[in-house]
Protein backbone atom coordinates (compact mmCIF):
# COMPACT_ATOMS: atom_id res chain seq x y z
CA UNK A 1 0.00 0.00 0.00
CA UNK A 2 1.39 3.39 -1.01
CA UNK A 3 2.39 5.58 1.93
CA UNK A 4 1.04 9.10 2.18
CA UNK A 5 3.27 11.99 3.21
CA UNK A 6 1.33 15.04 4.28
CA UNK A 7 3.39 18.16 4.98
CA UNK A 8 1.82 21.05 6.83
CA UNK A 9 3.45 24.48 7.10
CA UNK A 10 0.80 26.47 9.00
CA UNK A 11 -1.18 26.13 12.20
CA UNK A 12 -4.85 25.32 12.56
CA UNK A 13 -5.37 28.97 13.53
CA UNK A 14 -4.11 30.16 10.14
CA UNK A 15 -7.00 28.87 8.09
CA UNK A 16 -9.47 26.08 7.56
CA UNK A 17 -7.23 24.46 4.98
CA UNK A 18 -4.97 23.22 7.77
CA UNK A 19 -7.82 21.43 9.51
CA UNK A 20 -8.84 20.03 6.12
CA UNK A 21 -5.39 18.48 5.79
CA UNK A 22 -5.63 16.98 9.28
CA UNK A 23 -9.06 15.58 8.39
CA UNK A 24 -7.58 14.13 5.21
CA UNK A 25 -4.85 12.45 7.25
CA UNK A 26 -7.45 10.99 9.60
CA UNK A 27 -9.63 9.82 6.72
CA UNK A 28 -6.74 8.11 4.95
CA UNK A 29 -5.62 6.40 8.16
CA UNK A 30 -9.16 5.32 9.00
CA UNK A 31 -9.27 3.80 5.52
CA UNK A 32 -6.21 1.69 6.29
CA UNK A 33 -3.54 3.88 4.67
CA UNK A 34 -0.18 4.59 6.27
CA UNK A 35 0.20 8.34 6.85
CA UNK A 36 3.22 10.40 7.79
CA UNK A 37 2.27 13.90 8.88
CA UNK A 38 5.29 16.19 8.81
CA UNK A 39 4.88 19.50 10.66
CA UNK A 40 7.29 22.16 9.44
CA UNK A 41 7.65 25.94 9.68
CA UNK A 42 4.83 27.42 11.82
CA UNK A 43 3.02 24.07 11.88
CA UNK A 44 5.40 22.85 14.59
CA UNK A 45 3.29 24.88 17.03
CA UNK A 46 0.56 22.27 16.64
CA UNK A 47 2.72 19.66 18.36
CA UNK A 48 2.16 21.20 21.80
CA UNK A 49 -0.60 20.67 24.33
CA UNK A 50 -3.43 21.41 24.20
CA UNK A 51 -3.59 19.67 20.87
CA UNK A 52 -6.03 20.70 18.20
CA UNK A 53 -8.89 18.12 18.28
CA UNK A 54 -7.90 16.49 14.97
CA UNK A 55 -4.27 16.38 16.07
CA UNK A 56 -5.43 14.72 19.30
CA UNK A 57 -7.03 12.03 17.20
CA UNK A 58 -4.04 11.62 14.88
CA UNK A 59 -1.38 11.20 17.58
CA UNK A 60 -3.10 8.08 18.88
CA UNK A 61 -3.87 6.56 15.49
CA UNK A 62 -1.77 3.42 14.89
CA UNK A 63 -1.31 4.17 11.18
CA UNK A 64 -0.18 7.77 11.64
CA UNK A 65 3.31 8.98 12.44
CA UNK A 66 3.72 12.62 13.33
CA UNK A 67 7.07 14.24 12.63
CA UNK A 68 8.17 17.70 13.77
CA UNK A 69 10.93 19.59 12.00
CA UNK A 70 13.97 20.24 14.18
CA UNK A 71 15.11 23.38 12.35
CA UNK A 72 11.66 24.96 12.60
CA UNK A 73 11.68 24.30 16.36
CA UNK A 74 15.18 25.71 16.78
CA UNK A 75 14.53 28.81 14.70
CA UNK A 76 11.51 29.57 16.90
CA UNK A 77 13.41 28.80 20.13
CA UNK A 78 10.92 26.04 20.94
CA UNK A 79 11.73 23.00 23.09
CA UNK A 80 11.12 19.53 21.73
CA UNK A 81 7.48 18.52 22.19
CA UNK A 82 6.97 16.03 25.01
CA UNK A 83 4.27 13.93 23.40
CA UNK A 84 5.58 10.36 23.03
CA UNK A 85 3.95 9.89 19.63
CA UNK A 86 5.63 12.95 18.11
CA UNK A 87 9.06 12.44 16.54
CA UNK A 88 11.52 15.29 16.02
CA UNK A 89 13.38 14.96 12.72
CA UNK A 90 15.19 16.99 10.10
CA UNK A 91 15.24 17.60 6.37
CA UNK A 92 17.13 14.34 5.77
CA UNK A 93 14.20 12.39 7.23
CA UNK A 94 11.74 14.33 5.12
CA UNK A 95 13.71 13.46 1.99
CA UNK A 96 13.87 9.80 3.03
CA UNK A 97 10.11 9.73 3.53
CA UNK A 98 9.55 11.42 0.17
CA UNK A 99 11.63 9.02 -1.92
CA UNK A 100 9.89 5.86 -0.73
CA UNK A 101 8.45 3.93 -3.69
CA UNK A 102 4.99 5.17 -4.69
CA UNK A 103 4.91 7.73 -1.88
CA UNK A 104 2.12 10.24 -2.38
CA UNK A 105 3.27 13.59 -1.04
CA UNK A 106 1.03 16.56 -0.38
CA UNK A 107 2.47 19.91 0.70
CA UNK A 108 0.05 22.39 2.21
CA UNK A 109 0.62 26.07 2.85
CA UNK A 110 -2.17 28.53 3.50
Amino acid sequence: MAPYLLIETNTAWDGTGVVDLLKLAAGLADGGQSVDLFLIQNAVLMAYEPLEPWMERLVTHPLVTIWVDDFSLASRALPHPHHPQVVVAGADTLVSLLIRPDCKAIWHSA
Partner: protein
Amino acid sequence: MDHTTKTVLFVTLDGPHRSDSTTTLLRLVEAALAQHHEVRVWACGGATLLTQHTLGVHKPRNFLDLEAEYPSTAAVIESLLTRAGPVLQWYICRHCMEERGATAQMRLVKIQPPFRFFEHVRLADACLVMGPL
Protein backbone atom coordinates in the same frame (compact mmCIF):
# COMPACT_ATOMS: atom_id res chain seq x y z
CA MET B 1 14.56 3.75 4.50
CA ASP B 2 15.59 3.64 0.86
CA HIS B 3 18.89 5.36 0.13
CA THR B 4 19.56 4.27 -3.44
CA THR B 5 20.07 7.13 -5.86
CA LYS B 6 16.82 8.67 -7.03
CA THR B 7 15.87 11.67 -9.08
CA VAL B 8 14.01 14.08 -6.82
CA LEU B 9 12.07 17.02 -8.20
CA PHE B 10 11.19 19.95 -5.97
CA VAL B 11 8.70 22.38 -7.41
CA THR B 12 8.62 25.77 -5.75
CA LEU B 13 6.06 28.49 -6.38
CA ASP B 14 6.64 30.66 -3.36
CA GLY B 15 8.12 34.13 -3.57
CA PRO B 16 11.28 34.81 -1.62
CA HIS B 17 9.86 36.67 1.40
CA ARG B 18 6.35 35.34 2.00
CA SER B 19 7.20 32.43 4.29
CA ASP B 20 9.97 30.05 5.39
CA SER B 21 9.47 27.96 2.27
CA THR B 22 12.62 29.16 0.50
CA THR B 23 14.67 28.10 3.52
CA THR B 24 12.86 24.78 3.61
CA LEU B 25 13.50 24.25 -0.10
CA LEU B 26 17.21 24.91 0.27
CA ARG B 27 17.41 22.55 3.26
CA LEU B 28 15.64 19.81 1.31
CA VAL B 29 17.94 20.30 -1.68
CA GLU B 30 21.01 20.03 0.56
CA ALA B 31 19.62 16.96 2.34
CA ALA B 32 18.79 15.22 -0.93
CA LEU B 33 22.25 15.95 -2.33
CA ALA B 34 23.81 14.64 0.89
CA GLN B 35 21.93 11.38 0.30
CA HIS B 36 23.46 11.29 -3.22
CA HIS B 37 20.25 11.84 -5.09
CA GLU B 38 19.96 13.69 -8.37
CA VAL B 39 18.05 16.86 -7.57
CA ARG B 40 15.95 18.99 -9.88
CA VAL B 41 14.28 22.23 -8.86
CA TRP B 42 11.51 23.73 -10.96
CA ALA B 43 10.99 27.38 -9.97
CA CYS B 44 7.62 28.71 -10.94
CA GLY B 45 5.66 31.84 -10.02
CA GLY B 46 7.35 34.13 -7.51
CA ALA B 47 10.18 31.65 -7.03
CA THR B 48 11.65 32.81 -10.35
CA LEU B 49 12.76 35.93 -8.44
CA LEU B 50 15.20 33.94 -6.29
CA THR B 51 17.91 33.49 -8.88
CA GLN B 52 18.35 36.88 -10.48
CA HIS B 53 21.99 37.98 -10.71
CA THR B 54 20.80 41.55 -10.08
CA LEU B 55 20.20 40.53 -6.44
CA GLY B 56 23.96 40.67 -6.04
CA VAL B 57 26.02 38.64 -3.61
CA HIS B 58 24.69 40.22 -0.41
CA LYS B 59 21.32 41.45 0.75
CA PRO B 60 20.95 45.20 1.31
CA ARG B 61 22.68 46.45 4.42
CA ASN B 62 20.94 45.92 7.75
CA PHE B 63 20.95 49.33 9.39
CA LEU B 64 20.52 47.75 12.83
CA ASP B 65 23.73 45.77 12.31
CA LEU B 66 25.97 47.54 9.84
CA GLU B 67 28.79 44.98 10.08
CA ALA B 68 26.61 41.99 9.22
CA GLU B 69 26.49 40.59 5.71
CA TYR B 70 23.77 38.22 4.60
CA PRO B 71 24.03 36.32 1.31
CA SER B 72 21.34 36.85 -1.28
CA THR B 73 19.26 33.90 -2.41
CA ALA B 74 21.05 34.13 -5.75
CA ALA B 75 24.42 33.75 -4.02
CA VAL B 76 23.25 30.79 -1.93
CA ILE B 77 21.76 29.00 -4.92
CA GLU B 78 24.78 29.73 -7.10
CA SER B 79 27.00 28.28 -4.40
CA LEU B 80 24.84 25.16 -4.23
CA LEU B 81 24.89 24.74 -8.00
CA THR B 82 28.65 25.22 -8.17
CA ARG B 83 29.34 22.74 -5.37
CA ALA B 84 26.90 20.10 -6.57
CA GLY B 85 27.72 20.15 -10.27
CA PRO B 86 25.41 18.39 -12.73
CA VAL B 87 23.56 16.36 -10.05
CA LEU B 88 21.67 19.57 -9.25
CA GLN B 89 19.71 21.32 -11.97
CA TRP B 90 17.71 24.49 -11.32
CA TYR B 91 15.01 25.15 -13.88
CA ILE B 92 13.16 28.45 -14.32
CA CYS B 93 9.68 28.57 -15.82
CA ARG B 94 10.07 31.01 -18.69
CA HIS B 95 6.45 32.14 -18.62
CA CYS B 96 6.49 32.99 -14.90
CA MET B 97 9.89 34.64 -15.26
CA GLU B 98 8.77 36.87 -18.13
CA GLU B 99 5.45 37.67 -16.45
CA ARG B 100 7.37 39.09 -13.49
CA GLY B 101 10.11 40.77 -15.49
CA ALA B 102 12.55 38.51 -13.67
CA THR B 103 14.66 38.02 -16.76
CA ALA B 104 18.09 38.77 -15.25
CA GLN B 105 18.69 35.14 -14.34
CA MET B 106 22.08 33.86 -13.21
CA ARG B 107 24.03 31.86 -15.74
CA LEU B 108 23.87 28.51 -13.91
CA VAL B 109 20.07 28.12 -14.06
CA LYS B 110 18.24 26.74 -17.07
CA ILE B 111 15.25 28.61 -18.46
CA GLN B 112 12.57 26.25 -19.66
CA PRO B 113 9.29 26.55 -21.55
CA PRO B 114 6.30 25.78 -19.27
CA PHE B 115 5.34 22.56 -21.06
CA ARG B 116 8.73 21.04 -20.16
CA PHE B 117 7.47 20.78 -16.58
CA PHE B 118 5.55 17.59 -17.33
CA GLU B 119 8.67 15.97 -18.76
CA HIS B 120 10.58 16.68 -15.55
CA VAL B 121 7.73 15.25 -13.47
CA ARG B 122 7.69 12.13 -15.64
CA LEU B 123 11.45 11.63 -15.27
CA ALA B 124 11.47 12.11 -11.48
CA ASP B 125 11.27 9.22 -9.02
CA ALA B 126 9.81 11.54 -6.41
CA CYS B 127 8.21 14.93 -6.70
CA LEU B 128 7.21 17.50 -4.09
CA VAL B 129 5.22 20.56 -5.09
CA MET B 130 5.82 23.28 -2.51
CA GLY B 131 4.04 26.54 -2.08
CA PRO B 132 0.53 27.90 -2.50
CA LEU B 133 -1.18 26.94 -5.72
